[in-house]
């Protein structure tokens, strides 16, 4: 897309932002300058903490008060100097001329208001239409963002919508007053790949239709490649490089940009995984089912069941990585939890040849020494009120392994093992970066020397560069200690990097499984193919396909009592590769 005019709609000059810290003011943005042309998409890329969100908030005049403030520089919106606007003046600019889409669709809508109310409120505040017209306008907006059944959506509450739908609502609100600029702060990070692809497509189409300039913030170079006209790479609050997207990907000038691009996992160019001799599996799962009861009625009886996992079977060999992919809610995490006995399940699970069905608490404890889980969100899975050293040491206490100085030594060893310095033991989780926190979680899982680790979306929340480090760490551990992984992810590119075998799940059942190369290179099931096509490709020269889709209601795994989901059967489609016949 060609940038429209020659006169920038938004012009940022020498923007400097400071935040107050106990040790005095800290500069988080230092002299940032860039222009945003009409109709263009400018990407702000950079690792976590580089000041991307601060830039967006500074432009919106929403910097957290009184912690952060603009100390220098100017932000001009056309003729208006934003930094000097009064509160009331700023209100007229927000959404009317610059709209913002936040990262977390789950929490950025008011849970107590209907979709309609939240859209109309914006329209009326800026006098975009009369009260009588408002519902019609709201409907138009929802239609514009390709929501299915827009009429019905208007009356729904945010919690009744899936993440993708919510993000569409947020976009609809952003479009409400036909702004000149939309700032999108990591609008898809929290979404499934397939949904991410849909949202990105939507943004592109809307931009083409309306000529809105987009300031896109992301750490995902794939997204950058798909969306950007120009890119500004940020690091530690400074612009390291600014270039047209093609130029940047083709010949990055700065070291940092080069590094960043190198870390991006690319589907298809993963290293070969060594073939391994067939050994007795460390984990054998047969016909695993997990169902959650939905209660109701006068006597609070079960009236329906969530069929979260339905008849899943697989083996994992020593030193092998089995990847589990599938859309959100298909039952991936539940399998992990079932293996650890965190949810009630049926079927058979054998760990190192030992059946775990029917084990009591003590029996489970021994299982848990062999099998550990690393959760998706490293921030949420650490206790914010306990030092990380304590937390890494906890499994030792729980299993009565070490105490006294031996314990301290062991913790220090674990810290070094995951590439952290032992003198960080006394700190609290919030004092670490996301990647470091994930390392701590891994260290905690390693504390009891397990043979198998369930890694549940262990890298999804991390920056590319950090992600690469963590993946390397996992690989290293596997190479050295022969660990086996059940690697849960929805990111095909990541799976490509680490997996020996891949299993694709949908609605609690496996639709395709096989070796990595078989499943990823010659997918047999349409769903697998869709997943693969949704992965953003970090190559701006590639044509951007426009796959416009309506956001549909996800299919539900909830069935009334007595009703069973139809069991899918896998049929061989190749050597060590089976799929559900289409």
């Amino acid at each position: 897309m060609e940038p429209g005019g020659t006169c920038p709609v938004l012009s940022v000059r020498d923007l400097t932002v400071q935040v107050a810290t106990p040790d005095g003011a800290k500069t988080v943005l230092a002299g940032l300058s860039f222009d945003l042309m009409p109709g263009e998409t400018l990407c702000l890329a950079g690792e976590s903490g580089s000041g991307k969100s601060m830039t967006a908030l500074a432009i919106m005049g929403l910097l957290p008060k009184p912690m952060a403030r603009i100390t220098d520089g100017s932000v001009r919106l056309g003729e208006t100097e934003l930094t000097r606007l009064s509160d009331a003046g700023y209100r007229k600019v927000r959404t009317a001329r610059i709209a913002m889409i936040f990262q977390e669709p789950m929490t950025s809508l008011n849970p107590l208001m209907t979709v309609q109310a939240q859209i109309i409120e914006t329209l009326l505040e800026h006098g975009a239409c009369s009260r009588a017209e408002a519902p019609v306008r709201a409907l138009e907006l929802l239609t514009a963002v390709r929501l299915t059944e827009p009429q019905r959506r208007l009356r729904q509450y945010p919690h009744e919508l899936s993440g993708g739908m919510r993000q569409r609502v947020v976009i609809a609100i952003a479009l409400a007053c036909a702004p000149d600029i939309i700032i999108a702060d990591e609008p898809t990070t929290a979404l499934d790949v397939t949904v991410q692809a849909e949202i990105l497509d939507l943004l592109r189409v809307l931009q083409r239709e309306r000529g809105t300039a987009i300031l896109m913030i992301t750490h995902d170079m794939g997204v950058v490649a798909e969306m950007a006209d120009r890119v500004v790479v940020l690091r530690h609050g400074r612009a390291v490089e600014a270039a047209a997207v093609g130029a940047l990907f083709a010949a990055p000038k700065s070291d940092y940009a080069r590094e960043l691009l190198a870390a991006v996992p690319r589907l298809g160019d993963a290293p070969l995984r060594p073939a391994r001799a067939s050994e007795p599996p460390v984990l054998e799962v047969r016909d695993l089912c997990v169902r959650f009861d939905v209660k109701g009625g006068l006597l609070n009886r079960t009236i329906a069941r969530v069929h979260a996992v339905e008849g899943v079977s697989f083996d994992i060999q020593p030193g092998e990585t089995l990847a589990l992919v599938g859309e959100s809610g298909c039952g991936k995490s539940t399998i992990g939890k079932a293996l650890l006995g965190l949810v009630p399940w049926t079927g058979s699970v054998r760990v190192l040849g030992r059946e775990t069905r029917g084990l009591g608490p003590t029996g489970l404890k021994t299982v848990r020494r062999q099998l550990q889980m690393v959760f998706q969100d490293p921030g949420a899975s650490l206790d914010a009120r306990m030092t990380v050293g304590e937390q890494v040491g906890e499994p030792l206490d729980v299993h009565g392994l070490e105490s006294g100085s031996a314990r301290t030594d062991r913790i220090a060893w674990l810290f070094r093992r995951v590439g952290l310095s032992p003198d960080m033991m006394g700190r609290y989780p919030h004092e670490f970066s996301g990647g470091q926190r994930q390392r701590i979680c891994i260290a905690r899982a390693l504390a009891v020397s397990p043979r198998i680790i369930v890694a549940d979306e262990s890298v999804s929340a991390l920056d590319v560069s950090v992600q690469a480090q963590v993946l390397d760490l996992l690989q290293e551990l596997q190479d050295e200690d022969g660990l086996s992984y059940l690697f849960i992810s929805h990111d095909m590119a990541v799976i490509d990097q680490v997996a020996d075998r891949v299993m694709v799940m949908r609605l609690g059942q496996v639709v395709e499984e096989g070796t990595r190369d078989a499943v990823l290179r010659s997918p047999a099931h349409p769903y697998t193919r869709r997943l693969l096509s949704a992965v953003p490709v970090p190559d701006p020269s590639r044509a951007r396909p426009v796959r416009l889709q309506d956001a549909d209601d996800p299919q539900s795994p909830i069935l009334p009592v007595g009703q069973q989901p139809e069991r899918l059967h896998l049929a061989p489609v190749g050597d060590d590769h089976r799929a559900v016949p289409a």
Partner: protein
Amino acid sequence: MTPAAADTAPPGRTRRARVLAVLRELLRRPRAAFGFAVIVLMVLAAVFAPLLMPHDPFEQSFDGLSLTGAPLPPGGEFPLGTDLLGRDLASRLILGTRTSLIIGVLANGIAIALGAGIGVTAGYFGGWVGAVLMRFTDLMMAFPALLLAIVLAAIFQPSLLIVALVIAMVNWVQMARVIYTETRSLAERDFIQVQRAMGSGHLRILFAHLLPHLSSSIMVFGTLGISTTVLLEATLSFLGVGVQPPTPSWGNIIFENQTYFSTAPWLVFIPGAAIVLLALAFNLVGDALRDILDPTLKGRH
């Protein structure tokens, strides 16, 4: 957040050192320091009451009443005036610190602990344990506490212990309700799931991980509860459960004299101020403690 975030104290610091560090931090904040000073003063007053009291708190002195039998206002020989029996109010207030501290801190503490314990257990275990505990809570909530107090009063010898028990039995309910709801949502959080996956025992999860996160609610209820329990103690004394005359407590000084507040205001407003001060002091310290102990708020003012 960059990995090189501000370094904190080196690892391996002892518990004692940590307590001292917290204390230092506390005293650096003027409001918290004020609260702390008030608490320390009150504790000292309770411990060294016999040394501090200007008069015998039980002596119904003849000079302590006017000729018509009215209590004396503050000033002169009796710095805070006298009560309806001609006893020195200042001395009684100082001695009353003992009862009121024990009630406001201990009995209230028991109530809070009980409420938090039941709420957290019900919320954490859920299932039938939770259902039974919460139905029991509902029952206690709807139950006439005064009646219980009267029965206990008539059956047992009145003592501080009984008051503490009755107060605990009456006051834990709200706490339990609130903590229950909070625990329910906390228990779903990842870091608790991690503990289960690790094979941690329930006690560890409850005490090491859930409780610290509930401290904020506990603090609100705990400090508000101080005033209410101190006043409740007076009601219970009146019903015969609590400390019996002539032992003073702030609550029963107010209670005995409240109808005289227009003719002898010092008998109501001075002990009232003491109660407010105590609750306020705990609130100031509690707020500060919460900020200090919450590592995510470290250093912010």
